[in-house]
């Protein structure tokens, strides 16, 4: 455990400035989106009643209507899109975290391949780094969403129930990264993130083990894992079927990926 935490510390040191920059982009993006939402709403009300734009216009009933019609939904949708991009950047780092060791001849690369170190510790430390990066961005977005909705709530005078009521039917129809329901959150935002990282890592292990053919095999492994996930989603007709299919698939995919990674890491991975 201590070894893993040491390696995690090394990994986090290498990325924390980039992570802070990413969070900065996320926060700035949220401020811009919320600002634009309020700005647009104020302008729309001002145009409709032919008066000068002012933040006090947000207290009018028309603000509720305009926000309800599309502005709040657009705001949530755009902030989630931004979060989705940030998560993609983190997942891309799941590739970078391995290749910078190889090409950069860094300390962790040295620790991985030269020292009598359990290679799986390095694997776990790297996985923890990427997973915690995604969790940090997700948690930040959750906090920002609550803050922005609270701001709008206080400006317009909508109750929490009304905001939830506006969002609920629309949330169902949209693909949001942060799932609004408990099991969905666990399956996608908690376990799904862990699996995504493990699958990408396994793809990297495959690539490193089979040289040039490994690129094709590694990419196929990742695409295959994603394809099966969506295929199962399509095949399952009922909620409990989907939970069962995804549950079994998650366990199987995790075991296969970890088993494959462990074997390749100890027997075939080369520099």
């Amino acid at each position, binding site marked *: 455990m201590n070894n893993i935490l040491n390696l995690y510390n090394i990994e986090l040191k290498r990325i924390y400035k980039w992570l802070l920059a990413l969070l900065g982009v996320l926060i700035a993006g949220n401020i811009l989106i919320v600002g634009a939402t309020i700005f647009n709403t104020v302008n729309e009300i001002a145009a409709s009643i032919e008066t000068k734009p002012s933040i006090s216009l947000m207290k009018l009933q028309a603000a509720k209507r305009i926000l*309800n019609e599309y502005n709040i939904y657009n705001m949530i949708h755009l902030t989630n899109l931004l979060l989705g991009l940030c998560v993609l950047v983190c997942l891309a780092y799941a590739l970078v975290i391995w290749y910078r060791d190889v090409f950069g001849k860094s300390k962790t690369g040295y620790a991985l391949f030269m020292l009598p170190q359990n290679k799986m510790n390095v694997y776990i430390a790297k996985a923890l780094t990427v997973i915690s990066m995604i*969790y*940090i961005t997700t948690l930040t977005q959750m906090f920002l969403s609550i803050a922005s909705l609270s701001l709008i709530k206080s400006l317009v005078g909508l109750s929490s129930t009304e905001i939830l009521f506006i969002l609920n039917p629309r949330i169902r129809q949209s693909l949001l990264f942060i799932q609004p329901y408990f*099991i969905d959150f666990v399956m996608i935002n908690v376990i799904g993130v862990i699996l995504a990282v493990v699958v990408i890592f396994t793809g990297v292990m495959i690539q490193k083990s089979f040289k040039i053919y490994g690129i094709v095999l590694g990419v196929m492994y990742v695409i295959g894992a994603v394809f099966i996930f969506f295929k199962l989603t399509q095949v399952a007709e009922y*909620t409990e079927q989907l939970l069962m299919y995804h549950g079994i698939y998650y366990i199987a995919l995790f075991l296969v990926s970890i088993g494959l990674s462990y074997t390749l890491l100890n027997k075939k991975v080369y520099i």
Partner: protein
Amino acid sequence: MNKKTSKIVLFTTMGLMIMSTIAMGLNIKYDNGLEDISGSKENLDNVNIVYQKKVGAYRTKEVKLSKDDTKVNEFEKALDLHLPFTTFYKEQRDFYSESYSRTEYNYEYEDTIGFINTDRIYGDEILTLEFKVKEKNLKTNKEIEYKLEVTEENPDGKYSAWLGMPIRYNGELYASVIWSDENVESVYSANKEAWINIYKLDLENEKVELIDSKKFKNEDELVQLGYPSFTHNNKYYISKDIFTTTVTGETKVNKSFITYDLETKKFDSTDMEEDMVAGQYYSVDDIEGNVAYISTFNERYNTRTLKISTLDLDNDKFIKENEIYNIEVPEEGYEYNLRDIRCVEGKIYAVINGYEKPDLEEGRDQYNKNYVYVIDKNSKEVLYIGLIKEKLNAEINLDIVLDEEL
């Protein structure tokens, strides 16, 4: 960044993630009960209001409201929208999942259940009906699928066919199919001509035989067949609306049920005495024993009345026609419609949905409210009104179910 800081980052992140997950699990607990508006829940007797609600992609919740209590099953086997909430349909859900969305297409005999899906394949001057029949033996759990076809002439491709209602009678399978011209006239989707074909489906030899047919065509009238239709024992009951325009320009509708008895191989007709207002949608939501209740509840004319006609299926005669029940709604500003109705032992049980009329100034999504009504069928007195506390939209599967069916 030192080791201590990275540890704090890791454990704080994981801790917050776990706490957020737990908070999400504890969050949003909907109030699932039935709020009394007037009268006592005791009037529900052995009738339950059951609904299912999809909560995210992985969970279906089922709520059962009865006179005694409210039972919530947070993880329930999801049922298709078109299937009733009975134990039988829950058990056979996977079998029926492929059937098209009407229970009228299902049939049962001896130890076998089945359904027919009817597809249309348009060709050059022809229309081919493809009957996909699926049967399951409940004793052996063996399922068999059949595909049968019949091709009919279709000059200029102007006819269409639908509603392949099945009946198993004397070991044979029959299907009634409604044909009509596609040149729909008037706002009521009525046709210049329409007819009913009765086909015998020979499953073993995969042959389809037309055994009888009845056509409706009159120069001064428009006809609409099939809304609503049902089967009972060896008989088809297919609604026929004849639309005529009076001298004052008003459209009147004469409604009747065309019956076809597979035993006598004869068409017959059971007329409803009273002319109805055009465009009112009638439905057969309930068949109890040998009586069918044909109901309508239409707010378009601000009547807010429930009309029920009672058809004796033994004699094919209406016992009562268009009995009017005044429905006083608890709240104005809503548009009301009937979601489900059952008539059991002298009482009418109905779920009426109120959809909030859009208010642009208020500026928020419209609320759905669902009220449970119990009405004495004879005295017409409203015995109970209850509000289903949870807000349920039209996508929700809701049913009135008796204790013994659960």
